[in-house]
């Protein structure tokens, strides 16, 4: 297990480096001169040259990347071109909001597991058909639109939840109320996906000989379903949950914009519109790195659940 973990850890390093190279290149090869952007339309050629020098923009690209990587390793993500504030502190303020949103949405996603089990235990029944058709709708619904519908129905018409924003602390009645609509918006797609996957996995496993054996020896149905069938279904489901965490992080960009939540995703979009490249770079690297690390953890837990992976 240790060898496998080390190997996976080593494999993640080039991917992480690649993420930094790509983010750096995408934004540095973009048309337009950041120095002119910072200087504004009234800046003189001399002022622009001094900005370029201050930001190392006059150095070769590989030197700029080297400096960027060195700073990144030391936790320095540069300075916002627009707000003159350290990107690290801007992200630090917003990261807890995004993390809380992603984790709460993950809880919504997990509801897909019992729904999938329910559908699989009554295959082709009305419940199964209804659940699977609803889950298909859940996969197809644009999450920004779902968010708007939830706002119209539950915040504007019924007044049950706030229209936008977060209430701190999260562990208070108001805090939890402000979390529900964004979490449902972000988690619905994943919940539908997990329900479909759990159902097909369960149906597959329920046809296996060891399930027949478990039933034949008189085990109660609940033990057969949850101790034998579900545990074996969970391996692909956990992988998808890990991958879905990436979709949650990406989706957070949209959900945060819909609900005006002060998170990393919304910061990234606002910074793109303001052409504040240092902030975009910092946000993208942070989100992508989190995703790579979560996938690494998923891979390791996958190996824990399924010993054949470790020795493959």
């Amino acid at each position, binding site marked *: 297990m240790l060898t496998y973990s080390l190997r996976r850890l080593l494999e993640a390093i*080039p*991917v*992480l480096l*690649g*993420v930094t*190279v*790509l*983010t750096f290149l*995408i*934004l540095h*090869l*973009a*048309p337009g001169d950041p120095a002119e952007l910072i200087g504004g339309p009234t800046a003189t050629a001399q002022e622009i040259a001094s900005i370029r020098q201050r930001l190392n923009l006059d150095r070769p690209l590989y030197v700029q990347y080297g400096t960027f990587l060195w700073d990144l390793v030391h936790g320095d993500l540069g300075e916002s071109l627009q707000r003159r504030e350290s990107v690290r502190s801007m992200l630090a303020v917003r990261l807890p909001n995004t993390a809380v949103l992603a984790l709460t949405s993950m809880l919504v996603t997990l509801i897909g597991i019992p729904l999938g089990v329910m559908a699989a235990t009554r295959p082709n029944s009305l419940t199964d058909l209804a659940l699977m058709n609803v889950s*298909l*709708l859940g*996969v*197809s*619904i*644009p999450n*920004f*639109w779902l968010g*708007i*519908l939830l*706002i*119209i129905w539950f915040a*504007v018409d019924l007044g049950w939840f706030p*229209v936008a924003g977060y209430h701190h602390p999260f562990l208070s009645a108001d805090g939890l109320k402000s979390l529900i609509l964004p979490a449902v918006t972000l988690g619905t797609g994943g919940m539908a996906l997990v329900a479909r996957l759990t159902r*097909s996995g369960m149906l597959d496993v329920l046809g296996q000989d060891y399930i027949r054996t478990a039933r034949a020896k008189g085990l109660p149905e609940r033990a057969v379903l949850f101790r034998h069938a579900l545990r074996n279904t969970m391996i692909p489901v956990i992988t998808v949950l890990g991958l879905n*965490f*990436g*979709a*949650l*992080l*990406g*989706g957070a*960009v*949209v959900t945060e*914009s819909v609900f005006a939540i002060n998170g990393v995703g919304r910061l*990234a*979009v606002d910074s*793109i*519109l303001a052409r504040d*490249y240092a902030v*975009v770079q910092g946000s*993208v690297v942070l*989100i*992508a790195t989190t*995703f*790579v690390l979560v*996938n690494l953890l998923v891979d390791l837990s996958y190996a824990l659940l399924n010993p054949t992976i470790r020795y493959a």
Partner: protein
Amino acid sequence: MSTVSLRPSTSARRGSKVLGRLRRSPHFMVGATLAVLVTLAALLAPLLSPADPYYQDYAAVLKAPGTPGHLLGTDAFGRDQLSRMLFGARISLTVGITSVLLGLLVGVSLGLLAGYFRRLDRPIMMVNDVLIAFPGILLAISIVAALGTSLINVIVAVAVFSVPTFARITRGAVLAVREADYVSSALAVGAGHGRILGRTILPNILSPLIVYASLRLATSILTAATLSFLGLGAQPPSPEWGAMINQARTYLYSAPYLSIEPGVAIFVTVLAFNLLGDSLRDALDPRSQ
């Protein structure tokens, strides 16, 4: 020789089986009907639209759905909502189809090269792994950030977003058939690598690609609408569905239909291609059901 002579009849039989399965699938029927309706709406938009989608009528601002002459109401500039939605179908389908074709072209080429030439496998898949490491639509957002906000850049961004998955699927499929007898036979009779890749391998790995392209069309339409909703894609006054929802956010209290209607259009279109993709997958590989 016998294999070659048997292949057409085998594939014809398989084709009719697949068609039979599709005809019996309610999901396929619903998906195909919805997809045809959306495509017709896009093609016939100039004929079906009651008004110019850009025409601003300040005497008819924010008219509710059902108002005579404005079946789906009007927006804050007095523009006819139905006309805008019909023209929006053109934009969404064009962006979706173009970006999927572009993604297919690049992704399949990379996947074929990675799967067939062992020496290229590692470098191509390393770049691919990096692209896949960008979660959700973040890669598309980053590309739009670099290229600037416009519909053309959205097509490029959505295409790049699709490339790694197409490449991975193609590579997997190539690896599965690379050692097959018909590939070795083609090599033995002196066929070049290009011919083997294009004429021998590609036709045999089309099934997963067709299924995935159909599903990807749904994702691409959704991603493009999302980018426009965020203000990173089509810009006002374009009748792009995502951009329309973005502009309608100001009127959630007074005119919620402005947000609901284009959302239904996106939802129905995405659902149509998801249903098509799902039923195609089930028909081509019944074990996946």
